[in-house]
């Protein structure tokens, strides 16, 4: 496992010269209309954005600040969305550094973080005791899905247990595209939230176990519908844990060539819809997947794709990442409401995304402001428009 090099981390943190651009820069040329969603939607003190957080991190690491839960609070009230990294003028990645700080300081008490990690290690998911129920959705798709095969659909905990409609839609779309795919009998959690909240040793144990379970499928390609799973399996398993995992693709990446080659045929949407795309942070800023989902949406006949003011590298976060939804659910939902207002401003009918965390939180955000905009996973849209 790649361990955090403390000297290197300190050197990186020292790259922050407190210019403060990571707070609320509005810079049209680069697409920014604000930067930190937490600063914007909280009381807005200095530690609510990265400049202040880095000062707190340095003080905790150097022993200038006592290592207490309260003193470390600001390290966790961050979605790790990476918008600060996108605009930072210095040569370092503030969001990645904060993730490392969480790892190094993971002995500082934090009940929320510890509970999530414990549940994942005990139950293979952060939500329920009985993990086997996460395959229940398979019974409702109307066809059999084997548990071994070359293409594995890794459902993810949230789609499997909280938003099974997305899982069902994905299965229908893959079948319609002629893909023989498999779903594990008992799928493990990828461990994303453990890595983001600093429980990296535990995450590694989980990853090794998960990889063994994935290996039972015989998969050569893994497709996911969760942006968090994508980043974790594709990037962290390899780079952080040194694990040899088959090719991992988000289903939008996987489907784009199938649509273009005509293998997946889509019919005209029932009525013309103005759809906007919300870039999940783990898909966009983290892995640079911006155009594939847009191309997929544009391939649905009758769809008008419109952009929110902030998009791609400068897109505002939905508020659910980095463990914030668990750590401060109210703040996470406020951020989601703010993002929904972005969609309201351009009068979109639908806001589509490709991450169940985003979908779930944006729905709560929509409720909060009474928005009538439909929040939907891109796979749900595709399933509705299959020929």
């Amino acid at each position, binding site marked *: 496992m790649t361990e955090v090099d403390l000297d290197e981390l300190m050197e990186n943190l020292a790259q922050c010269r407190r*210019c403060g651009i990571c707070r*609320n820069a509005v*810079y049209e*040329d680069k697409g920014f209309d604000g930067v930190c969603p937490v600063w914007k939607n909280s009381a807005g003190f200095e530690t609510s954005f990265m400049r202040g957080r880095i000062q707190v991190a340095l003080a905790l690491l150097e022993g200038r600040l006592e290592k207490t839960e309260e003193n470390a609070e600001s390290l966790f009230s961050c979605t790790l969305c990476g918008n600060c990294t996108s605009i930072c003028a210095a040569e370092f990645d503030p969001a990645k550094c904060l993730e490392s700080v969480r790892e190094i300081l993971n002995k500082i008490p934090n009940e929320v973080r510890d509970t999530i990690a414990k549940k994942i290690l005990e139950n293979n998911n952060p939500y329920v005791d009985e993990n086997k129920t996460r395959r229940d959705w398979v019974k409702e798709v109307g066809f059999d899905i084997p548990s071994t095969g070359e293409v594995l659909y890794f459902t993810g905990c949230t789609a499997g247990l909280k938003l099974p409609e997305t899982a069902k839609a994905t299965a229908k779309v893959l079948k319609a595209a002629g893909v023989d795919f498999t779903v594990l009998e008992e799928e493990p959690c990828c461990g994303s939230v453990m890595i983001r909240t600093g429980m990296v040793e535990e995450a590694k144990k989980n990853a090794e176990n998960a990889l063994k379970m994935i290996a039972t499928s015989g998969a050569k390609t893994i497709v996911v519908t969760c942006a968090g799973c994508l980043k974790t399996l594709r990037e962290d398993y390899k780079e952080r844990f040194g694990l040899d995992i088959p090719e991992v693709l988000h289903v939008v990446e996987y489907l784009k060539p199938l649509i273009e080659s005509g293998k997946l045929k889509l019919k005209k949407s029932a009525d013309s819809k103005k759809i906007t795309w919300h870039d999940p942070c783990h898909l966009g800023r983290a892995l640079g997947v911006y155009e594939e989902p847009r191309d997929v949406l544009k391939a649905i006949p009758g769809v008008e794709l419109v952009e929110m003011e902030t998009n791609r590298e400068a897109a505002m976060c939905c508020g659910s990442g980095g463990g914030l939804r668990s750590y401060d659910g109210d703040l996470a939902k406020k951020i989601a409401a703010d993002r929904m207002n972005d969609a309201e401003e351009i009068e979109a009918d639908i806001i589509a995304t490709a991450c169940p965390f985003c979908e779930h939180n944006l729905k709560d955000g929509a409720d909060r402001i009474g928005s009538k905009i439909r929040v939907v996973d891109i796979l749900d849209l595709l399933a509705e428009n299959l020929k």
Partner: protein
Amino acid sequence: MDKKIIAELSKIVGDGYISTKQSELLAYSVSASMASNAVLPGAVVRPADSKQVSQILQVAAKYNIPVTPRSGGSSLQEEVIPEVDGLVVELLRLNDIKFHKELRSVTVGAGVTYGVLEKFLKEHNVFLPVYPESALVCTVAGNVAVNGAGPGSSLFGCTGELVLDVEAVLPDGRIITTGSEANPYASGPYQRYSFGPDITGLFIGSLGSFGIITKVSMKVFKRHKYYDHNTFGFETHEQAEQFMVDVKQNDINGVFTSLYEGPVLELFMDMIGEELGVPKYEWPFRTVSMTIGRVREDLLKSDAELAKKLCVKHGGHVIGISQLPYQEWNGRLWFFVRACYVHGWHWRTLYHHQTPTNAHRSVEEIRRVMDKYGFLGHTAGFASGHSSFNAYPHLYFDPQDLEDEQKIRDAHKELAKTLFKTGAVPFKMAPYWADAIEGMDNYMTFLELIKKTIDPKKLMNPRVLGGL
């Protein structure tokens, strides 16, 4: 800070907008000023409006608590470092913008940044034409309080020259509005020089020492439609400096006219030239990089041609690389912040004005202290008004090497003294300059008298103005 005082302040701003958390105080103990000693305040408040600021200052006066106003926190010369157990009044919630189309002016709350304002004004095809280099994070009111300058200053002068009036909360809590708006029947901000002395000017560059600026009204101008970007090379500093003088003498509309040393330009272009699209070039001893802006094309053409002739007249050559001035001006919200932080060094700066023909003295002085103390650094600058030149020396150090940092502090102190003796003037009396000035006794006595009259308890940002 005493619980009773906290309770009184909470009543004013609401519980959510006051903090005494250790971690929060620590974050407010510093700013973008590097090699500065952190000072923990006792509390931070984030008021919503001028009325709350007024009530806060009344509480501070009642309990003799020193107050440090702060907005973007991007100042580089310790302007917002708080006092021990003092009160930080953070103004970013004051974010109203009001455009006065007929008056060619805009009024902004103390929390409005240049980035936010630029977007707003663009919709009206006007601009506030002087931008600090930290424009994406710096507030307009903050820049007025530090009397800043930056891109645009070559034509429009320092930020202070664009101010029509301010709304300020005095140390005793009274709220005043200066300029034409001192008249409650005035239709808006249209004349700074009203009712006698320039009270507006008292607050420009005052660093919150006389009160807290809660609103500023600024002149705005029609956006230039036509630009010419060019670079001019010279083999002596006299040639380059005389060229800059002649550009002004001939009323060439250089909105941003920078002067660089060859090695400095090479160093920075090695780092960011490619990403900015600036071609590789062996930069001469001195380069003047100039953007001319005009609202009419014929005037632009005439200016651009004349600039080339003047360059040759002064023994220079037209380099013809337009990307550098293009990026300086078109990318003015980003170019400088990128250049300042792309390298890993921490640095101290010592902003000051010179005459254009004395620009080389700033270069000589920084080179002298660099040699003496053994550190890396540079200075560059730009025309900053009617006949001045703004130099911004950067002194580099490694923040993880305390000896290195101390060296910079010592060198910096010495540099302030020697620059002063070259005839240079600071924008404002930030703490760095306190030991440097001499022979200004009467001026300082008068300043002290003003301070005593306005702020008899010396509660408002006491570390600035030489600690009067």
